[in-house]
């Protein structure tokens, strides 16, 4: 393990990776899928199909001509039964294509030709790779959902020299990336080479937290003998998988507040995104499936390979059903995941995990007064003062919040996690950030 690969702050939540040894299983084919037309950061797609259309597996059903966007593809063959607003796991209601599955999946005949698994990334044109990555609808599958092709496009003045694949999976309870690295390591490594070629980087690093030694070993074997590639084992500490922490831990390069890794010559992609890129180039298949960890109060937690658009209800049933009362459904990890108001929401490109919690798992106690213990200050990986930010936000003093660098917060939640008084620290910071954002937008007009 690279003991120097550390960042300041952070916390050690109990890992709860109980599904780490659960091999990925195929999900029983859902009867219908709901595919939101925005599963990424950026412009929403326009529907390319209408109610009544027959669609084939992998057929684009939504796209838009915008610089930051990613197309959406049919994850099953079937018939479009609705194009309507639906609740998404991001908490918003988005336009979505609802497809009733046909008895069998037939791949769309318009799919681009695959280059085969023995393809040589160095022989490909970088723009061709980026175009295929965009066509395949790839977005950051670790949770952020930023369109992958955009990140790979070099900007004048900042040429990336390193591609980092994020295999930290620092959130408790999630094992989908772990299983992916273990079960499809060749895809991950090929994806890394494709990304390096696409953006012109000469070095590739895969960062894996030390609690996945088997995955790190597999990947290390594959990159052995290639001096351009390496696998770094990182200490287990949340939020190790946050982009800025990862870049610092691996390369000692600090991404400035308001900046992106490209500002320091780095492109960071999730391991699942890399594997999906390899599939897109080698087989021509777009992103229609992903691995999802289902854990919590279900009879048999595990990992499933799921068509996008599958309802959380289907996942819950595949995992053997609930074992008790259900009080909270989380899309994502317990530290940053989003609590769902309803179980009937679809898996989207960024959904790596669904956690079903019972009332006994929640620690809802009323907030007490801040005792100024400074635990939030110690825990904050961005070096902020969450207690002060919370104070400012509660007083609606947005100027003070800005003075305390509220915009630098990446909302990892470490502060609220450690707060002995249960103060809504990251929650009030979110409020301040959204209020400042609203004002900035309003101020423009």
């Amino acid at each position, binding site marked *: 393990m690279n003991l120097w690969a550390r960042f300041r702050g952070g916390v050690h939540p109990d890992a709860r990776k109980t599904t780490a040894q659960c091999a990925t299983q195929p999900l029983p084919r859902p009867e219908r899928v709901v595919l939101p037309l925005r599963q990424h950061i950026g412009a929403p797609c326009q529907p390319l199909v209408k109610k009544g259309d027959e669609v084939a597996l992998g057929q684009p059903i939504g796209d838009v001509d915008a610089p930051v966007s990613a197309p959406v593809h049919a994850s099953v063959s079937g018939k479009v039964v609705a194009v309507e607003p639906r609740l998404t796991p991001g908490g918003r209601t988005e336009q979505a294509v609802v497809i009733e599955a046909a008895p069998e999946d037939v791949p769309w005949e318009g799919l681009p030709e695959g280059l085969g698994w023995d393809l040589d990334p160095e022989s490909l044109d970088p723009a061709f790779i980026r175009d295929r990555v965009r066509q395949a609808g790839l977005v950051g599958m670790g949770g952020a959902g930023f369109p992958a092709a955009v990140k790979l496009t070099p900007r004048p003045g900042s040429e990336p020299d390193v591609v980092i694949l994020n295999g930290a999976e620092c959130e408790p309870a999630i094992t989908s990336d772990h299983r992916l690295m273990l079960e499809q390591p060749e895809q991950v490594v090929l994806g890394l080479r494709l990304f390096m070629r696409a953006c012109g980087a000469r070095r590739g690093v895969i960062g894996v937290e030390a609690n996945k030694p088997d995955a790190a070993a597999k990947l290390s074997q594959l990159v052995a003998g290639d001096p351009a590639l390496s696998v770094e084992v990182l200490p287990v500490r949340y939020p190790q998988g946050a982009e800025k922490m990862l870049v610092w831990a691996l390369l000692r390069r600090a991404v400035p507040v308001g900046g992106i890794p490209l500002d320091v010559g780095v492109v960071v992609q999730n391991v699942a995104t890399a594997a999906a890129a390899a599939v897109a180039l080698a087989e021509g298949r777009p992103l229609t499936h992903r691995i999802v960890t289902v854990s919590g109060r279900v009879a048999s937690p595990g990992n499933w390979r799921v068509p996008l658009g599958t309802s959380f209800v289907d996942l819950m049933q595949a995992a053997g059903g609930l074992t008790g009362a259900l009080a909270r459904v*989380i899309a994502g990890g317990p530290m940053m995941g989003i609590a769902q108001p309803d179980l009937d929401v679809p898996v989207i490109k960024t959904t790596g995990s669904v956690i079903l919690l019972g009332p006994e798992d929640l*620690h809802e106690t009323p907030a007490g007064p801040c*005792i100024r213990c*400074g635990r939030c200050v110690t825990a904050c990986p961005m070096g902020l*003062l969450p207690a002060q930010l919370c104070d400012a936000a509660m007083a609606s003093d947005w100027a003070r919040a800005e003075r305390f660098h509220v915009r630098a917060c990446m909302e990892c939640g*470490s502060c609220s996690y450690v707060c002995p008084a249960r103060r809504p620290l990251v929650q009030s910071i979110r409020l301040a950030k959204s209020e400042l954002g609203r004002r900035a937008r309003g101020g423009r007009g």
Partner: protein
Amino acid sequence: MAKTESGELLVASSPHLWAGVSTSQIMRDVLIALAPAALGAVYFFGWRAALVIALSMGAAALTEWGCMRLMGKPSTLGDGSALVTGLLLALTLPPASPVWLPVLGAAFAIAVVKVAFGGLGHNFVNPALAARAFLLAAFPAAMTTWTSPFDAVTTATPLAVLPTPFAPDVLAGPLPSYRDLFLGTVGGSLGETSALLLLIGAVYLLVKRVIDWRIPVGFLGTLALLSWALGGQAGLFTGDPLYHLLAGGAILGAFFMATDYVTGPITPQGRWIFAVGCGLITVLIRLYGGYPEGVLFAILLMNVVTPLIDRFIVPAPFGGVKGRA
């Protein structure tokens, strides 16, 4: 939309996990850490010490309960902070205190210093220390009648017998040995006598990361350095830093009072400033001031400076701000 069979889902903003260390657990840890010194006080000074401790803690709890009741607010006794204040105050009192002294002090600490300013988290000085300062000003005789351990004979405290640059020839009595100071077999207030017992509790708090190591290190480091440099009779760097560390309230103050979260800075940088300031003021008072002991006023003064420190110490965020390098 399909509702779940179990009914309502609770939606809340992440994180959905909690480390599980609560305010009351922290207060409990402080009480545990003070237990060796408190038991030591009873061992050294007998049942009078036990009575002072019980009265002080009881009065603190009762005052907080009464204040909350008067204001029609839910009781805050559960957080345990009133008991910590009561115990800390007791440890700063003389063993021969009349019974009303700890009661009055604890009531003042809670009602005036803590609750009147908004309760836990809002008081601007440490309630126990402020109460001790109040008692010292109002009842100097009762507060400075020291007895020696075991035989309860009136005695001087180790710092009072130490000559200072201003009164170099006044040796008010024989100096106790380091060993006596370390074990606690000297005169003094209940809890400040035995460095050993205090350090046992301090180690517990440091290991459990309840207190920030910077504060005792900065405080005692400054105290040692300056008392060595300035505290001697034979010129610079002839002082006795070990004596200054072990005698008086330096250890109790540095580990248990300056580390009070509420009245100290919240940033690591601010805590260094706070700690060094405590050490500096302690030395100034001990060597050049009218009181033999300076820890009390040093911490109180730095408590008052804390909001200023927190106002000006705003660390740069990780990575710096783009375009401002």
